[in-house]
Every structure is written in structure tokens, then in C-alpha cells.
């Protein structure tokens, strides 16, 4: 039983990961999409989400958390403003979002429809992503701003290009297109990507875990039953507006968070640890005989070439540079962002 590292020695995973870091990678990254329309759509979404939505300009988008009344994060999404009274919410948890909106709709004049089946999405990420997108689209994207979404065309197919992503790359884009065109878009990506040295990313673990973790991003499993302050997602919150969970979150702000999310690196390669990202409670972090946290995430940085992860720990129980043991393996506490 070697507990051989499932990332380090896997050349397929390494190649896909490093394509995004060195050239570009593309991958099917379709999310659930909820289209929200109606006279009150902006103020309704302002109430639903912690970060401001009503002040978004048309064609811009924003990452935000969704909280329950206890200020616990129950989803994190990107909201796009496509018109004065038209928004898209990109989530991976439609089955939670729909009942949540139903529960809070009240007298708001707003309609929302699950349009997931209508659109697929490809992520195109990496230093050559802009070049790759430009080689495919009819309208050059050089002037497109970060966190903006614009109509465009690929081989005559109407698409929307969003400048953003989940990899931490400076140039990261997402192509939204009609679902029935997936074959053509895939062929276009291959045709234009391969000459640039770009690769298709096919491994879920790379697109959802290793790339985002290196950049310090979260997957919802990391955030579940935490609040934005303890995981460092409070900087964009608009405290001047009303939103669900605000009252409870203000108390956390006032008293200070009880926990914090920290990063760690681990030099030993072949280890067996259980983090929340695979389900369950995560391995306990024991310091001086006391459990001070749990292992939230554990995977690999191909850029650092070592194991990395996140720990949700009691506030101030650990500091950057601390050396701890997780089970029998030595780890060094670090910032959550690894590159």
C-alpha cells in the first residue's frame, strides 16, 4: 500500500494542468443557468446576494456569495447583467437556488427560469487564451474588460464571451453558446487551439480542484457552513444594502470570526489524507492535543510540485509559517493562494 500520489506522477493530469499555466487549456465547464427578469430583478438579487448586484452595469458580471439567515454560505455564484431587467445566475446548485428564490420572492415583480439546457459553456484559460479566442471570434476581444460578457460569433454561431474564470489566469474566458452547437464549438477550439500548443482539459480534478486551488479559489464544499468573513470573501460585500444574512454577519463582523481558512503545503508526496472536498468531515487538525480545525481541501500544485490544501481552523490558532502535523505528515501553514 504505497498511497502513491494521484497527481504528481500522472503525466496526463500534469500536462492538462500546465497547459493552462503555460499556453492555454479549454474544457467543458457548463454550469446551471438561471435567467432572472422583471421590473424588480435588480433589487431582488440585491436582497438575495451579499455583494451588490443592482449597481452592475449592463454587460458586467460579479462573483458573490449567497447566505442564509445565519450568514452561512449556501452558494457562491457569478451574476451577469445582460439588460436593465435581465440577469443570468451561474451556479452548480440549481436544486438549491430555485427553492431559495421561491422562498424569498414575496411581492417582488420578478420571474426566473432555469435555462441550463439551452446553453453549454467552454472555459478557455491561460496565457494564450486571448489569442485563441481572437482566432475564433468575429469581433476582436482585445478591449473587453475583466468580468464583462459580450455577444460575439464563432463560425456564424451566436455566442457570448465572458472575460473571467476559475483558474487565476490573467487571460481566462468563457464561451456561452447554444447547446446544439457543442460539436462545432469543440471542433473550432481544437482547430485553433492545437496550433497554439493549447490542450483540452478533460480531468475533473484539474478543472475543479488543482487549478482553482493554486489560485486560492474555493469550491462550494470548502465554504459550506462557513461565513464570508472567516473565509475571506467579505471584501466585496455592500454593508449599506439589505441582504439575507446581513444581521447575523454584522454580529460576526462586530465580534470577529471564530475561524479562518488557511493554506498549507506538504513536502511529502505519497500520503493518505481525507479532506472535505471528497465528502465527509475532513481529517482533524490536532495541535498540542487539541482539535483546532479540519482539513477542507487537499490536492496538488503542479507549479510548486507539492501537495497543497486548505484548513478551516480556529481563529489565530495557527499562523503563516507554523509547522504542524496532519496525521503523521508534516505541513507548513501558508497563505491560501499558492501562485
Amino acid at each position, binding site marked *: *500500500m504505497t498511497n502513491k500520489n494521484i497527481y504528481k506522477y500522472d503525466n*496526463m493530469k500534469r500536462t492538462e494542468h500546465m497547459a493552462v499555466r503555460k499556453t492555454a487549456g479549454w474544457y467543458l465547464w457548463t454550469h446551471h443557468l438561471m435567467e432572472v427578469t422583471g421590473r424588480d430583478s435588480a433589487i431582488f438579487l440585491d436582497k438575495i446576494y451579499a455583494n451588490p448586484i443592482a449597481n452592475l452595469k449592463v454587460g458586467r458580471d460579479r462573483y458573490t456569495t449567497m447566505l442564509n439567515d445565519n450568514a452561512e454560505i449556501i452558494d457562491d455564484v457569478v451574476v451577469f447583467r445582460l439588460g436593465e431587467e435581465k440577469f443570468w445566475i451561474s451556479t452548480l446548485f440549481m436544486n438549491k437556488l430555485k427553492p431559495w428564490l421561491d422562498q424569498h420572492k414575496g411581492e417582488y415583480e420578478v420571474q426566473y427560469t432555469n435555462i441550463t439546457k439551452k446553453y453549454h459553456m467552454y472555459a478557455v484559460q491561460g496565457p494564450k487564451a486571448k489569442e485563441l479566442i481572437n482566432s475564433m471570434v468575429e469581433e476582436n476581444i482585445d478591449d473587453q474588460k475583466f468580468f464583462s460578457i459580450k455577444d460575439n460569433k464563432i463560425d456564424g454561431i451566436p455566442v457570448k464571451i465572458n472575460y473571467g474564470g476559475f483558474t487565476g489566469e490573467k487571460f481566462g474566458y468563457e464561451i456561452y453558446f447554444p447547446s446544439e452547437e457543442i460539436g462545432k464549438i469543440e471542433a473550432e477550439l481544437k482547430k485553433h487551439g492545437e496550433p497554439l500548443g493549447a490542450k483540452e482539459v478533460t*480531468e475533473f480534478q484539474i*478543472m475543479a480542484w488543482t487549478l482553482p486551488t493554486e489560485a486560492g479559489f474555493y469550491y462550494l464544499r470548502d465554504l459550506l457552513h462557513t461565513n464570508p468573513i472567516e473565509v475571506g470573501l467579505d471584501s466585496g460585500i455592500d454593508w449599506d444594502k439589505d441582504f439575507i444574512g446581513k444581521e447575523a454577519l454584522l454580529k460576526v463582523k462586530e465580534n470577529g470570526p471564530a475561524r479562518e481558512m488557511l493554506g498549507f503545503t506538504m513536502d511529502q508526496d505519497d500520503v*493518505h489524507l481525507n479532506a472535505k472536498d*471528497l465528502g*465527509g468531515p475532513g481529517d482533524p487538525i490536532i495541535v498540542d492535543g487539541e482539535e483546532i480545525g479540519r482539513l477542507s481541501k487537499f490536492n496538488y500544485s503542479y507549479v510548486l510540485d507539492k501537495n497543497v490544501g486548505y484548513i478551516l481552523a480556529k481563529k489565530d490558532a495557527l499562523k503563516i509559517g507554523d509547522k504542524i502535523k496532519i496525521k503523521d505528515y508534516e505541513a507548513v501553514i501558508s497563505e491560501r493562494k499558492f501562485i
Partner: protein
Amino acid sequence: MSKKVDERIPREVGSGVLPDNPAARSPWGKLVSYRDAIHYSARYNAVFSASALQALRILVPDYKERATLMSDNAYKRLYQVFTSQYGPYAMDEQNSHPFFRGNFGGGLTGDAGDDALLMCGRVNDFGTYRVEKELDVCDWDIVGSDLCRATTQSLQGTADGQATHLQPGTKLEYCMVEAKGCGDPHCRIVAESRDKYPMPEHEIWESFGPIATEDQIRYTPEEDMVKESQVFREECNNTFCNGTCWERDASSVYKQPATAATTYIFPAIEQLIAEKKFDEKFVNHILRCVFEASGKAAFGEFYAKEGLRNWLGVPRDIDDGRIMGAHIEMFLQCMLVDYEIEAFNNEEVIYVIDRNRLTFNTPRAVDAFVYMWYGMTKTLVSAEWSLWEEPNDTPADKLRIKIAKKIDKFC
């Protein structure tokens, strides 16, 4: 000295038992906690299923032939279920993501299903090309390795069925490379993409491996093993939560009587009858022989009877059909099977039971329960007593059973 308070029910002093901590109750007021009730019925079902598999082993003595029958039957049924509209519903519920390609997402169903069957453990790997799940507990470990093969193929059918609703992608082959029922310390399912990890093709029943990624196995030593599902563990806040944030509480634990038998064994028996391999009368004869013997064996030893009396809180002066009735009642309560009591006295005990709930729409398993309970009555009470079905004047969806003294010269 550690001041740790081990997990206990109720957790807090003074919080009482009911209503915060639901329980089943014997006819004499003995309370059995929800957790114990679930564990009890899980093992009860395993014992019942072990008998069912013995019957199938008599009908089909050849291991390969039998394992093939069970595996093929399980694969086809689960594939059909998950290619239907149930597939997208289940995938939504478990938060399968729209960008998943291929069949690796089936691992989510297997993981949640394990936890709901109290087969606790952990996911060690979850990716497009490889999935690994390790179990520390399996109540079905007494049923038989042919069942393990069939369950593996049911997972394969589930995963393949789900994949039909997604964009094409690599196909994983699910293998059970360790099985507690075979003597291994864990059950371990490893699913591998044959595109990435080529291996020779094999027949459907050969789902125990070998695999290509044995060196990637994460082995949990005994000291780190768990004994309870996430829904019964404080460290999990008594909530199952998988990697895609599917959260479920203890009410999600499977309460389907005889799950292994009704999901994997009786369907194979029905297939044999449908294909006219065996006459239905002969099959029923085999079931009667096996289940009656199994029931008699359950309480043949005096200490087994003493144990049951203690479990149910039977008063010292009671030694008649009510003990058997209480035994059945406790099982029905634990499984949330509706029943009515028509009689409960020292001469007769009569129950009217929801037939469909009892066996999850597997009618022949109802007969098997009656055979087994008949056998139990002979040793738990005495040979003077018997248990039989009284179908007359009973609605088709009800099972009316009577426990009373009876002389039978052909028993």
C-alpha cells in the same frame, strides 16, 4: 485523563429520549433508539438476504453461472432506471454538475447509497478517469461474494445510465477489488478508465479486478476506520455531506426491508422462473425449505432466546406467541412498515401488515418472510406454536399473519 465525552444518545444530560431522539418501542415499552433500530434492521435484512442467496445457490449451483445471472440482471435493471427520467432527477439531487462527462459521476450515487445502508467509509479518489471508495463496515458481508459482484454491476449500470444524460466522455469500469464478505478488512470499489488504464476485457461476473492502479489505493488502517455513517457521527454534525455538497440527515437512511434480497436476489430468481428454467412451485419449495430452516436456526440456542427477551423487555411470566409477535413488530417499526394489531394475547397474535412496504414490491419475498417467521416461532416460542398466513378476507395489499398453537402432522 481525557475529558472527552464519547458519542451518546441523548447527547445532552436531561434532554430525554422522546421526541428529540426518536425510538421504536416494544409492546412492553422497551425503547430502542433510532440508531440502534436502523442497525438492527440492517443486519436483519442481511440475514434474510443470506438465506435468499442460499436458495438461489441451490437453484444455480455453479458460481460463475449464478454470479453472471445476478450481475447481468442487476446491470440491466439499474441501467434502465437511470436512463429513464429518474436519472436526471437523481443526478440533480446529488448535485452532479452539468459539465460532468462520461460515467464517473455514478460514484456519487454509490457513495451516498453506501452511507444510507450504514456501509460507512470514505471516498479516496474522485476524478474523470479514476474513482475509489473504501468501506469500513458492510452489514451485507454475510450474504455472499456473488452478491458483491452483482452490486458492482448495479453501480456500473447506474453510472452508465447516468452517462446517457451527459456529454460523451470516458467510461470507467467499476471493480470491487476488496470485499469484507470475502475476508478483506475493507470493501473497496475502484473504477478506472480503460482508455487511460488499459486492462484485458473480462466477463461481466469478473468484477473483482485485477485493476491497473493498485499502487494508487489509499488504505485506511484499522485505527482510523469508522463505525458509523456520517448521519450518526457528531464530527459530521449528524449529516451526510459528499464532495458536491449533497447533504442528508438520518432520515435518509434506507428503510427498505430486505434490500439486498429484493434488489439483487429475488429479481434473479424471478428471471429464472420467467425464462422457464424452473417451475414456480419448485422455486417456492426451495424457498420454504431454506427460510424455515433459517428461522429455526435463529433461536435454537437458549441464549439467543434470552437475548431477544432482553432486547424486547419481555416480562418474565410471558412465554407464548406474543414474543414472536413482538419480534416481528420491532422489525416492522424499524423498517417503518405499517401494520395493525388484530389480536395480541396469550392464545393468539394477529397482525395485518402492508404487504408492499414489507418487501418493496417483491411479492415472493413476502412468502419468504412468512416461512422464516414460521421457523423462528418453532424455536423462539415452542413447537406447539406456529405462524401462518391467513389470506381469506384479507385485501390483496395486506399480509394477515396469525401466531397460535397448531397441530400439523405434515410439518
